[in-house]
């Protein structure tokens, strides 16, 4: 039998677990501070978001990114969004936007978006719901493109959006439209609950979280609450995305304010209206000074938007239906 050579390091499988295992074998927490997360986001080029309309937006991360000086970014938004796209536009954080819908629905048009579009201060890609969903799906699966048949024949999108191209379907010989994969450098998302290892629960959700996470090089989760593993382990089916996909977790109570946090607290209509009115009046900078860059931390922000009393009202509005 040959003996162990002494001049080469042993293969790792030759070293018993006793010698390899650290004295305290502990899982590494993914928790970081909100300001750290903001700096990371600001260092990236392309950002993607989930949530929908005025619900489940990663607002605390967006404010942190603005504070960290994020600029010249490209945004792949959810197919419908309001302040999650409009505030970054107001803060001159974006140079390019894949547009599907940016607006405040019952409360009106998105003022900063409209202003930027009219003054052409930002590139707008004439995307739409299938473009964003299917492009994200292509990126999520590492596929070269996704396809749409017929529908774009009937709309102006192929003429206005040079990223929509065509290819011949090898099975039928028909011409079909292609949508490119929409990768992002960082995907930021809101969760109602998450453990420190990144297993995240979205209690509402539009279904865009999973593909957006898979299509991103980095995933940062803001969560209303951190829950222990015992809570996560109660039902594996309750988690929206596995912690494996998540790089960082930020614990921020009322992180989605002023948007709706599904099943958790109501949208702050008064604040959303205040935002719209101020930006419409040309007071965007004043809004940013007061509510984004001004507060010394997130709890100070909460104070400025009405304090915990107001947050409790929003929570009650959901609890009491």
């Amino acid at each position: 039998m040959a003996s162990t050579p002494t001049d080469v390091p042993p293969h790792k499988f030759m070293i018993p677990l006793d010698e390899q295992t650290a004295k305290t074998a502990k899982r590494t927490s993914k928790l970081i501070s909100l300001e750290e997360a903001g700096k990371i986001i600001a260092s990236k080029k392309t950002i993607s978001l989930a949530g929908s309309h005025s619900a489940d937006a990663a607002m605390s991360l967006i404010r942190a990114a603005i504070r960290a000086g994020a600029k010249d970014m490209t945004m792949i938004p959810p197919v419908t969004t309001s302040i999650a796209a409009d505030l970054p536009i107001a803060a001159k954080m974006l140079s390019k936007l894949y547009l599907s819908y940016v607006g405040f629905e019952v409360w009106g048009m998105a003022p900063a978006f409209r202003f930027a579009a009219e003054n052409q201060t930002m590139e707008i890609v004439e995307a739409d719901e299938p473009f964003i969903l299917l492009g994200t799906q292509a990126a999520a699966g590492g596929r070269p493109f996704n396809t749409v048949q017929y529908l774009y024949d009937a709309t102006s999108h192929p003429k206005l959006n040079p990223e929509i191209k065509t290819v011949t379907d090898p099975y039928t010989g028909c011409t079909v439209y292609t949508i490119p994969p929409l990768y992002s450098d960082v995907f930021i998302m809101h969760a109602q609950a998450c453990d420190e290892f990144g297993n995240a629960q979205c209690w509402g959700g539009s279904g865009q979280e999973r593909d957006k996470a898979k299509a991103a090089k980095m995933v940062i989760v803001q969560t209303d609450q951190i829950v222990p593993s015992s809570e996560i382990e109660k039902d594996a089916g309750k988690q929206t995305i596995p912690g494996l996909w998540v790089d960082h977790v930020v614990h921020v109570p009322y992180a989605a304010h002023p948007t709706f946090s599904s099943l958790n607290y109501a949208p702050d209509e008064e604040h959303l209206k205040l935002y719209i009115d101020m930006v419409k009046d040309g007071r965007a900078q004043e809004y940013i000074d007061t509510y984004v860059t001004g507060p010394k931390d997130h709890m100070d922000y909460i104070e400025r938007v009405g304090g915990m009393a107001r947050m409790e009202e929003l929570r009650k509005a959901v609890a009491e239906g």
Partner: protein
Amino acid sequence: MAEVAYPGTDRYSMAELMAVLLARMAVGDAESAGGGGANQIISLAGNRLAQLTTAPNVWLFTGGAGVYNGKFDRLPIGTWDSRCGQDAECKIPLIDVADGLTKGVNDNQPKRVQRVGAGGLGGIQVDKYGNINMIGIGPHPKLKVRGPGTVGSIWLGAGQTNIFLQHHGKRLFVEKVDYVSGAGWLTGGDSRARTLNGREGPRYVWTPIAVMDFTPDEHRMRICTVHPGYTVTDVVANTGFELAIPDMVPTTTAPTDYELHMLRTKVDPDGVLRTKRVTVG
């Protein structure tokens, strides 16, 4: 050599040794780990043992149950066994596996979701470059031996993995596979890198009697260590192609008391691996 390999010593079984080896090496630095095919019991035990000792951050995926980090304390009989779901952390649809593994390797195609980590796959033929055949033997479609189908063995082309086999014999280790269902180093040299866009290839081959790896340039299978109770001659006699043999071939380090204690109390208290048959010849 006997058809059935009884425990290498009277202290531990070969299946236990293989699980321990896997724990020591296979998942240590991987982000996620999964096992597959008919070898699930041993690879599940190895991955879970690693998670409990050297690799607390590993994400153990059990494909059949579709969950991450099931904290089983009785050995499941497969990745679909409900024991895999014990205190699991997240349930995912299987499409996530395909999505993760079909991604490219360049910068703008992030590798996420499911990396081929440890665990590995077996086959009905394995050749000297680590290519795997689960399709069959003989001319297609009238095969002499029809394999069970190839399931996810194509994922061997997605990145680094280890090949884990419960048998070591000449009918399994052949000069050239009849069909490729899972890519090893293809025809050796840089053939894999050229075909698969620079993706890493298989690293280790684990069998009941030896651990093998691949030579650095030619990527030919090479003996690393031989398990206690066996010799290089045994390995050569049971391999159907010429193995690279270094000047020095150490004996595989046997399981320590700590390793057996952890395995038998935290992972496999029913002693399934103690009587699990792995075969030679």
